[in-house]
């Protein structure tokens, strides 16, 4: 393929997904647009050296993620990530029909409230462009960690979605004793 054709095709294929990922990370449209642009700029200057165009997708997501990290000093992570609490192993059910009736903006707002550690893989998961293996590659964490972060992220998100679908009422994770 003519190198001049590659760039517009990549933009066409991936800029909406990259923007959504950026929006879930940065939590505001201007920063998300900026991150998306910056990612393609880096591609324009460095990424074209990548011989396998098939790897461009993960390259772009990885680059966007690294740019996000570079621009943001990460908070210290004190949570034990690999141990799911009982409540997180059994999150409240979220009704697909209820979610289907919610505004996309409200669903996005819930996603953006999930702690960053879990939001990163969760956003990539819901983009549906990347498998859990590719998500692990983009975020540079082991596969098992990705799986537990997805599980915990989903638990957080469902609590938030339930809360938002009921107009802001606070719903807590079920207590261990209540589940017995």
């Amino acid at each position, binding site marked *: 393929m003519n190198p001049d054709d590659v*760039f*517009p095709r990549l*933009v*066409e294929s991936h*800029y*909406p997904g990259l*923007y*959504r990922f950026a*929006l879930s990370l940065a939590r505001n*449209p*201007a920063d998300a*647009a*900026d991150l*998306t*642009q*910056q990612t*393609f*700029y*880096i591609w*324009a*200057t*460095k990424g074209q050296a990548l011989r396998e165009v098939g790897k461009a997708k993960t390259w772009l997501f990885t680059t966007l993620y690294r740019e996000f990290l570079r621009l943001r000093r990460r908070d210290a992570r004190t949570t034990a990530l690999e141990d799911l609490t009982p409540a997180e*192993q059994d999150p409240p*059910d*979220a*009704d*697909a*029909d209820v*979610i*289907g009736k*919610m505004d*996309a*903006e409200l*669903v*996005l707002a819930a*996603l953006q409230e999930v702690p960053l550690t879990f939001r990163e893989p969760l*956003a990539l*998961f*819901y*983009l*549906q462009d990347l*498998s*859990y*293996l590719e998500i692990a590659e983009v975020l540079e964490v082991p596969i098992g960690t*990705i*799986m*537990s972060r*997805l*599980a915990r992220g*989903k638990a957080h*998100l*469902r609590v938030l*979605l339930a809360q938002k679908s009921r107009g802001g009422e606070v719903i807590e994770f079920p207590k261990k004793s209540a589940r017995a």
Partner: protein
Amino acid sequence: MNSHDAQFILRARRPGERDAQDPLFAEALAEVEKDPRLKAWHEREQRTDAAIAAKFAEIAPPPELRAAILAGARASRPRAGGWKMAPWLAAAAAVAVLLTVTVVQLGRPAPPQGDALTAVALRELITAHGDHDAEPPALAALQIRLASAVGSFPERIELRPDDLRRQGCRAFRVGGREVFELCFRRDGIWYHLYVAPATGPDRGVSFESAGQFAAASWQRGAVAYALATDAGRAALQRLL
């Protein structure tokens, strides 16, 4: 693999058939087939994930973003170069350029004095600015970013003089301080961003003009910025 393991693994399975070939999921799905409760849970999980993914897909990027990315890439393309002129043509061109520069300089306003960054920017632009082809490759990404940044520059642009120095950005000294210059083209207009270390509190945007030459400066953190153009104040204000 037990039912709990299968549940843990299947939470990472995307809705639909995208992960159908993954052997880890195949094993977990075999467990699903043996356990009706697990099967019901998995169907609910997939429906919920599909509903959330569909909502996420409804979020549209800003309408101008795609065009901005493509325009930025076009602006970053290396210019055609390396062609050689016959000596007579080179001499004629040199005379033509000299005449043009003289005429243009004669029509130029008097450069402002002082060490304020707007004055420095205008003076540099009016009297000393050279061509735009000398930026080191390491700054190309930054140039493209400037060429299509969305939003107000004072809000969006954050640069560090140390980084610019390391990247080989063009610099000059005024009043003892190092001033870096980055040029970029946007919507057919050349803009020039000057960046210098600064002290004191942040400052909002202030303007200075000299004829068609206009500059705006602001200060954020320990960095002062001036954005200048020869296309008039209105062109400048579009970026602020």
